[in-house]
C-alpha cells in the first residue's frame, strides 16, 4: 500500500539522491536526517554533492578526512548487525511458526510471553545481564567486542556473539510475534482449508501454502526494524566498546564533531533507505499481487 501510495514530491533532495524508484518513507527519512543539521539550502547542496563524490568533510577532532572513519565503522557495524540478523531471522520465524502451530498450548505461551518480555527490555539492561552471566560468571565469552588485531573470521565471530545477543532478544519478540499472527491468519484462511480438503499432505500445505503467505508481513516488520536496530547499535556498541557507526556517532555527539556526526547520520539514512527498498523489492517478488498492482 505504502509502495503504491508513495507520491513523488517534485524537487525533493532525498528523491534526487535515491532515484525515482525509492520508497517514499525512505526518502522522507533521508530528507529528515539531512535536514536536521543543515538548514541552509546552498551549503546543504554542496555538502551533498561532495558526499556523493566520497568527500564527507574533515573531522573537527581528528583533523583528517571523515570518510575512512565512517566507512570503517560502517563495516564493523554491519558485521555486528549481520550476526544479529543471521541469528534472529530464522530463529524468530521458527519461534513464531512453532508458537502458531501450538496455538494456546504451553509452548505457545512460553514463546509469546518470553518473546514479549525480552523485547520490552532496554538493550543495555539485557546486555549487562548477559555480560554478567556469560562473561563474568561463566567466562565463556569475551566481555568486549574489540577483537585482537589479527583475528580471523571465526575469532571475530566469537567476539561478536555476546554483543549481538541483546539485539537478538529485542528483535526476536517482534519477528516471532509477526510470524505467529501471520501464521494464525494463514492457517485460518480458505485456501489452507482448500489445500487440506483436496488431500495434500500437512507438510506440503504448511510449506507451499501457509508459510509463503504468513511470512509476507514478517518481512515488512524485519525491514522496519532496521531503523530500530540502528538505535540499538548506538547503545550496544557503547556498552561493548565496539568501533561501529553507533559508537562513532555517540563519540561525535559528545565531542560536537559535526562533520562526523552528519556523515554518520546520513550514512545511516542511506542504509535505512536501502534496507527499506530491499524489503519492498523482496515483498513484491514474494507477492505477485503487488507487481500486478503497479502495472495498472
Amino acid at each position, binding site marked *: 500500500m505504502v509502495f503504491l501510495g508513495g507520491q513523488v514530491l517534485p524537487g525533493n533532495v532525498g528523491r534526487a539522491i535515491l532515484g525515482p524508484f525509492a520508497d517514499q*518513507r525512505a526518502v522522507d527519512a533521508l530528507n*529528515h536526517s539531512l535536514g536536521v543539521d543543515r538548514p541552509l539550502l546552498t551549503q546543504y547542496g554542496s555538502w551533498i554533492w561532495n558526499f556523493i563524490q566520497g568527500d564527507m568533510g574533515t573531522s573537527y577532532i581528528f583533523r583528517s578526512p571523515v570518510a575512512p572513519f565512517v566507512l570503517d565503522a560502517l563495516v564493523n557495524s554491519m558485521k555486528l548487525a549481520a550476526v544479529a540478523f543471521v541469528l534472529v531471522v530464522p530463529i524468530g520465524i521458527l519461534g513464531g511458526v512453532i508458537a502458531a502451530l501450538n496455538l494456546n498450548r504451553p509452548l505457545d505461551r512460553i514463546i509469546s510471553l518470553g518473546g514479549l*518480555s525480552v523485547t520490552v*527490555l532496554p538493550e543495555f539492561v539485557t546486555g*549487562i*545481564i548477559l555480560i*554478567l552471566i556469560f*562473561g563474568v*560468571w561463566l567466562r565463556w565469552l569475551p566481555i568486549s567486542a574489540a577483537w585482537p588485531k589479527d583475528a580471523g573470521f571465526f575469532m571475530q565471530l566469537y567476539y561478536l556473539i555476546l554483543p549481538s545477543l541483546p539485539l537478538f532478544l529485542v528483535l526476536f519478540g517482534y519477528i516471532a510475534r509477526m510470524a505467529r499472527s501471520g501464521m494464525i491468519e494463514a492457517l485460518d484462511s480458505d485456501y489452507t482449508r482448500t489445500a487440506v480438503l483436496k488431500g495434500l499432505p500437512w507438510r506440503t500445505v504448511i510449506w507451499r501454502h501457509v508459510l509463503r503467505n504468513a511470512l509476507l508481513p514478517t518481512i515488512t516488520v524485519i525491514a522496519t526494524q532496521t*531503523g530500530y536496530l540502528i538505535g540499538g547499535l548506538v547503545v550496544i556498541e557503547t556498552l561493548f566498546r565496539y568501533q561501529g557507526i553507533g559508537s562513532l556517532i555517540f563519540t561525535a555527539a559528545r565531542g560536537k564533531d559535526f562533520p562526523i556526526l552528519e556523515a554518520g547520520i546520513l550514512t545511516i539514512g542511506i542504509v535505512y533507505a536501502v534496507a527499506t527498498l530491499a524489503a519492498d523489492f523482496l515483498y513484491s517478488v514474494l507477492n505477485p499481487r503487488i507487481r500486478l498492482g503497479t502495472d495498472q
Partner: protein
Amino acid sequence: MSSSETIPDNTAPRGPWAEVFFSLLRSPTFLVGLGIVLFWVACALFGEHFAPYDPLADDIINALAPPSGEHWFGTDQIGRDVFSRVIVGSRDILTVAPLATLLATVAGTALGLFTGYFKGIVDDIVSRILEAFMAIPVVIVALLAIVALGTSKATVIVVIGLSFAPIIARTVRSAVLAERELDYVAAAQLRHESALHTMFVEILPNVIPPILVETTVRLGYAIFAVATLSFMGFGIQPPSPDWGLSISSNYGMIGGGFWWTVLFDALAIASLVIGVNLAADGVQGALND
C-alpha cells in the same frame, strides 16, 4: 446496559467504565504489573525513609564491598550503598517517563484529532511528516537534540514526548476516521458546532479507550528510552542515583568481577519495564473485551 436502553439515563457512560474497572481487577496480568509499578512508585515517594543509608553518602574505606549483612547489595566504587541507591533511584525515571508520556499523549491526541477530522490535504501533509519522524530512531533524535539543546530533564521529556507523539497521533487518527462517519458527528455539524467543539467534546470522549491503551504501552517505551538515555549519559545527570546512570558509571568495572554494582540496577529497570508492560497488557485486554 439494558436499563439505559429503556430509560434515558445521564449516568449511562459510567456503566462501561465500571465494567472495565472490574475486568481489570479480575486480570492477574494487570494486578501483577500494577503491583510491581506501585512498589517502585512507593520507593520513589518514600524511599529515603526506609533506605538503610543515604544514597549519596560516600564511604571510601568500604568502597566496592560485596553484598553482606551490612550492605545487602554491596557498595559502589566510592562506597555508596547500592541497596539504598536502587530504592531511591526509581524517583527520577518515574518523574521523567510519565511526564514524557503525558506530553506525547496530549500532543499526539491533538494531532490525531486534527488529521482524522479534517482528512484530505491536511491529513496527507501532516501524516507524511509524522511518518518521516517515526522513521528516525529515538536515540538518534535525542542525540541531536541534546547536542543542540544541552542535557537536562526537560530536554529528555521534550525529546521523548515529541518522538512518541506521532505514534499516538496515528492511533488516534485511525480511531477518529471511524468515529467521524457516525451520526452523532453529523448531528453536531448540523447544529453548527465549531470544529473544535466537535473534535474535543463530541469525538474525543469516544476515542478514549484506544488513547488509554496507547498511553500505557507508550509509558513502557518511555521508561525504556529514559533508562537508555541516562545510560548513554544524555539523560538524568549525576549525582542522581538513577538506575541507568549507575549502570553507566559502574559497568566499566564488571570485568573485575564487581557484579553487584550493576546487576541490581539492571534488574530494577527490567522489573519496572516488565511491570508497566504487564499492566498495559491488562488494560488492553480489559478495554477490548
